[in-house]
């Protein structure tokens, strides 16, 4: 294991544990200010969308691929549709992945 890897793991471990332990350690003494609480609710949507959108629209990381041959885009759209229509996360994962792999196989 390289030093860089070790540093990454140590850093990730430290911040993750500190977050999880924050309130268990402090007890009732500390409260989130309302603005922070409000901001926290937007964090998952903002982070996850920021990760997914470039992966889906530029699958190779460099070129736009905005057509029906893009399995990433098609699979993500299927996942989104299932999640929106049926509100079922496992089905959204499974359905999206099935279409993604089927499409890659068909176009290969």
């Amino acid at each position, binding site marked *: 294991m390289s030093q860089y890897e*070790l540093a990454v793991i140590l850093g990730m471990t430290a911040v993750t544990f500190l977050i999880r332990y924050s309130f268990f350690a402090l007890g009732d003494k500390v409260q989130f200010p309302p603005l922070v609480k409000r901001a926290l609710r937007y964090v998952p949507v903002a982070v996850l969308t920021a990760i997914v*959108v470039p992966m889906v629209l530029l699958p190779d990381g460099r070129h736009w691929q905005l057509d029906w041959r893009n399995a990433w885009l098609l699979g993500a759209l299927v996942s989104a549709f299932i999640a929106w229509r049926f509100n079922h996360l496992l089905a959204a994962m499974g359905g999206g992945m099935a279409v993604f792999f089927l499409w890659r196989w068909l176009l290969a």
Partner: protein
Amino acid sequence: MTTTFHPTRHGELLQGARDSLPMLAGAAPFGIIFGTLAGPSGLSLLGAMGMSLFVFAGSSQFIALTLLSGGAGLAVIVFTTFVVNLRHALYSATLLPHVASLGQRWRIPLAFWLTDETFAVVQHRYGAADASPLKHWYHLGSSLAMYGNWIVWTLVGVLLGRSFEGLDKLGLEFAMVATFTGIVVSLLKTRPMVAAAITAGAVALLARDMPYKLGLLLAALAGVVVGVLLEGRTATEEAQA
């Protein structure tokens, strides 16, 4: 979820593990995929196992792989982990009343093992009507089950990745895309939330060439700011109406 069992330490422990079964099944493919993709992303066998053993936070581990293979800097990876895992602070705050009476030798490990899945499972148990003083054993049972599960499937993934060439070319990362897409869509219940998503997506595209993957953080920040501002405005309009 069943709640009719003898409230003994062992009973609670086992029930916690048993009630986590669907979560264990859901996490298994992610453990495998994480382990499989670790090598091609530049993480050694020890590094992959170390991450699952010590960080123990699936989505941030996946994102770390993406960042590592994209050549991100240490600070960006650690800060992104911080942002992605911030939601755990909310879980920590929510569960505090139930663990406040326990000593640190309970609180420290339960905090270390706090995941989305265990949070969801134990919240039910802590909220159940019976006044069992042993509910933290249930919490421990769910935690240990999730932890063991994650480590075992990571190892399976690492071994698979080393045994079969080209597994990383299959597009297994799409599992992450499918999951994140599903999570995001299920959260898009209000207009500010939709605006936050659109903003974050657009900024992520515009800033995608920034060094060290800083564009991701900028996009997340922009999304959060837009969401909070819009929510504030909607609230003001409603108050005036």
